[in-house]
């Protein structure tokens, strides 16, 4: 069932691609952390962003107060 490589959408996993992928995951995790868990320590906005995104956090299933 394995498809010929030419029909697959992804680039070969060179070290460069892997590094970019790793970096992207780091940035994305930081973003998800800001929405889900930050209480001002990373965003440096005090509790403002935390309170602003309060409803989203609840409805996205993240534990909150």
């Amino acid at each position, binding site marked *: *069932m394995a*498809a010929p490589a030419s029909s697959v959408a992804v*680039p070969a996993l060179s070290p460069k691609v892997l590094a970019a992928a790793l970096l*992207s995951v780091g940035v994305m995790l930081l*973003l998800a952390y800001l929405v889900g868990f930050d209480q001002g320590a990373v965003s440096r906005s005090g509790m403002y962003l935390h309170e602003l*995104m309060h*409803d989203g956090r609840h409805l996205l299933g993240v534990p*909150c107060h």
Partner: protein
Amino acid sequence: MRTFGSLLVRGLIVGLFAGLLAGTFAYVMGEPRVDAAIAIEEAGAAHSHDHNNDHADSAEPAAQEDEPLVSRDGQRAGLFLATSLYGVALGGMFAVAFTLLRRKLRTGNDAYAALGLAAAGFIGIVLVPFFKYPPNPPAVGDPDTITRRTVTYLLTLVIGLLAVWAGVALSRWAARYGDVARLAGGVAGLVATVVAAYLILPRINEVPETFPATLLWQFRFASLGTQATLWLLLGFGYAAAVDRRLVRTKVAAA
């Protein structure tokens, strides 16, 4: 052939739209429940003096009542910010997962591969945590245990992804015994991992006796719907995004 950059950008854009639409679902289905729960929370805070509550427990809602940092209207708008950012983050990670795992998915169709990944993500990141630690509305949950609840929640998320992996691995191993065995193996690997984790992880139930059961159910249903919307749109959106490129490449090559 696609570069990682083009795959990533597609994930971010699809994630943004999925997040915005999930926010719309949450706004319509979830906000009335959040409002109702906050009303209960504030009523409870007013009576909490004759309760044997912790000091922090009664002080925090009171402080929020006096001068909220963000108004309720602000939080309703912030809902869209939260779901959009979360959608972008998921879309980006989805694109990375697609890049790294695409060759391991046994299909010649990129769109099917995207749908399969989305299904795996939804089971591992949403369903497995949901049934062990269902999301709670405001007024439910002891602030003193938030760290513990956060850690256990993240653990279920990681275990959920491991369970999906176990299901896939067992189904591939069982495939030699036929199609039914392949499916049964997948289900068995997934369910066995999840059940074992559910038994080991601590039970957490902080729903107050007096909290309305209907409201709790409606809130949790809205939360599940929000996340289902996000993952459904992410999966089909990304499938469409890589599919269209495939067609264009073929045309260009012809």
